[in-house]
């Protein structure tokens, strides 16, 4: 019942309900990993499926992703304890995402970030105007699989190359998959700078991540 309610709250993007339900999880000492995997994640998966079918729209998915993030924040300490005790939850992969330095455009990046969350990834969104070092630091800290870089200006695209070069210099290039996106970027540009993938759309980015983490 609680699991169904968690799922529903994510589908409805209802943050108030999420707070109430997550506090119940804590008070009732409900297994937090169970709450995430069989409740919250089921809701976000349902949204993702309905979005693919054209039944649901971006606001539905993004509000669902926000609700899920809020729940993970509330349950965070308990989840960490469970993890320390050896109870693992299934995560498709961890992604560090952000908009590169000098670029403050984030609508597209926010959409991709939400869609990645909806697709079952653990997403660390750094926001806008980020130095290359910030991406690698976060990736090292959380043990990311993928670093995703957004650039909407032709003048900030070189930052994407800079990150790939930076990883090489630090001897970290093979540790992470690097994917890029943004209006002026292309597959040619991704090839040129030695990125692992590119997509024009959020849906394409998910397919790309699935392929890279398979």
């Amino acid at each position, binding site marked *: 019942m609680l699991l169904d309610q968690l799922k529903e709250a994510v589908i409805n*993007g209802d943050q108030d309900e999420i707070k109430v339900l997550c506090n119940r999880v804590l008070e009732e000492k409900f297994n937090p990993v169970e709450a995430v995997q069989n409740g919250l994640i089921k809701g976000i998966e349902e949204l993702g499926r309905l979005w693919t079918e054209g039944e649901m*729209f971006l*606001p*539905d998915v993004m*509000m669902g992703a926000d609700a899920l993030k809020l729940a993970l924040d509330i349950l965070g300490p308990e989840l960490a304890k469970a993890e320390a005790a050896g109870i693992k939850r299934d995560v498709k992969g961890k992604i560090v995402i952000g908009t590169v330095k000098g670029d403050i455009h984030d609508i597209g990046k926010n959409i991709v970030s939400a869609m990645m969350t909806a697709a079952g990834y653990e997403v660390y969104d750094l926001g806008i105007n980020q130095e290359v070092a910030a991406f690698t630091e976060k990736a090292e800290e959380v043990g990311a699989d993928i670093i995703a870089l957004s650039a909407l200006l032709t003048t900030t695209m070189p930052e994407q190359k800079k990150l790939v070069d930076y990883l090489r210099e630090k001897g970290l290039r093979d540790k992470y998959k690097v994917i890029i996106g943004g209006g002026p970027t292309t597959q040619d540009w991704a090839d040129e700078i030695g990125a692992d993938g590119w997509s*024009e*759309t959020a849906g*394409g980015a998910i397919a790309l991540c699935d392929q890279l983490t398979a």
Partner: protein
Amino acid sequence: MASQVSLRVLTEDDIKQVHESSLRLLQEVGIEIEYQPAVDILRDAGQRVEGTRVYFDPDFVQKKVAEAPEEFTVYARDPEFNVQIGGNNLVYVPGYGAPFIIERGKRRATNWEDYMNFLKLAHVAKDMNLSGGMLVEPSDLDERTRYLDALYAHIRYSTKCLMGSSYGAEGANDTIELLAPVFGGREALKEKPVVITLINTISPLKLDERQTGALLEYAKMNQPVIIASLVMAGSTGPATLAGCMAVQNAEVLAGITLAQTVSPGTPVIYGCASSITDMHSGSVSIANGESSLMAAAAAQMAKFYGVPCRSGGGLTDSKTVDGQAGYEAAVMLFAPVSAGTNIILHTAGILQYWLCMSYEKFVQDLEIAGMLRRFRRGLEINEDTLAVEVVSKVGPGNHFLNQMHTRKHHRKEFRKPLLSDRQSYEGWVLESLTSEDRAERVRQQMLAAYEDPGLDESLQRELQSYIESRKAELLK
């Protein structure tokens, strides 16, 4: 709140001048009416008659036109598909009467299979309010009796309202005879009209035997008629649009006056299909700035007389589903929709000035019609839609994609396209489909989605036996 979309192409004084010119034409030139019962009815009502020429008294015309209803309901087999004609309602009707089909630029005669396909498309299409009339002219059926097969098909395979036959008094009577048993008998039909029929005048200033004969029968039965004039500016009317409209208006007023004289309160629709002549070839051109102006002006004239209007359409002179077919149809739909027309015949499918139909054009026009229905609905301005609270909450530089207000409103505020491609280049280039390619797919999906609504079997037998006996008479 009512939509404020209201394009105006005529001033009140312009309307009055057109009106007065038409009354002069009706009084001084008169209308040639090639159907004796109609001439007799008008003579008996006090109009001056010489042979088949009827001279209308201006006061009589105005009095009669005032008797026509401003708005009325037409009842469908499925009440969900009842249509309201008049007010700010916008009713879309498929293309009508084309003898040819164009597929990928190749023209051929239409057949019964095409007829049934268009009927199914019209039934399935959400934006199509009527299943239509003679959707195409099926060349493989005998032309003397094909209207009976067509009527039966509309009654049997769609539950939307349909258009009646205007093949003379006989066609009208057959239409009524076929509909009466389905809708509870002739008296019930009179109470609740179920069929709309297109009655065309002959420009300039004539009403022929066949159309007038049908008009009289429908008026007696209180079934709505569209009195439509198609003046070709420069050939069957003056080259000035004003002169063209005066002629059109005179013809339509004559038709309305006749209908009200037969039966006061008969639902009528002011119809305009006027267009221009290509002055090099003499051919009609149905999609241009001039015709769209007249389609918009007609909506204003109809409002002036207090009757609903039919004008415009997904019209084009193009012979294939190309840019011309798209931009001409858009112009010919946009102007009348903006001006408040109520019913649009030939909304979807037409190519080559009404001569041809196209499946892909049908779908493409549905998209334009859908966009324009949204346009006509207008802007909704209130505290909730102005969204100041949400904007304050989100603040500068942030986005609205994760706001409940967005989630709640976008579904109603935005129309989802049927055909338009809004993909990324990456997505589009995979198949590189043009609008015509996509329209072909949508058409196939729509045909696959068609479900037979069914019809009581004894009713089917009754209608079929009527048709058989009528065919035996007509083919003698």
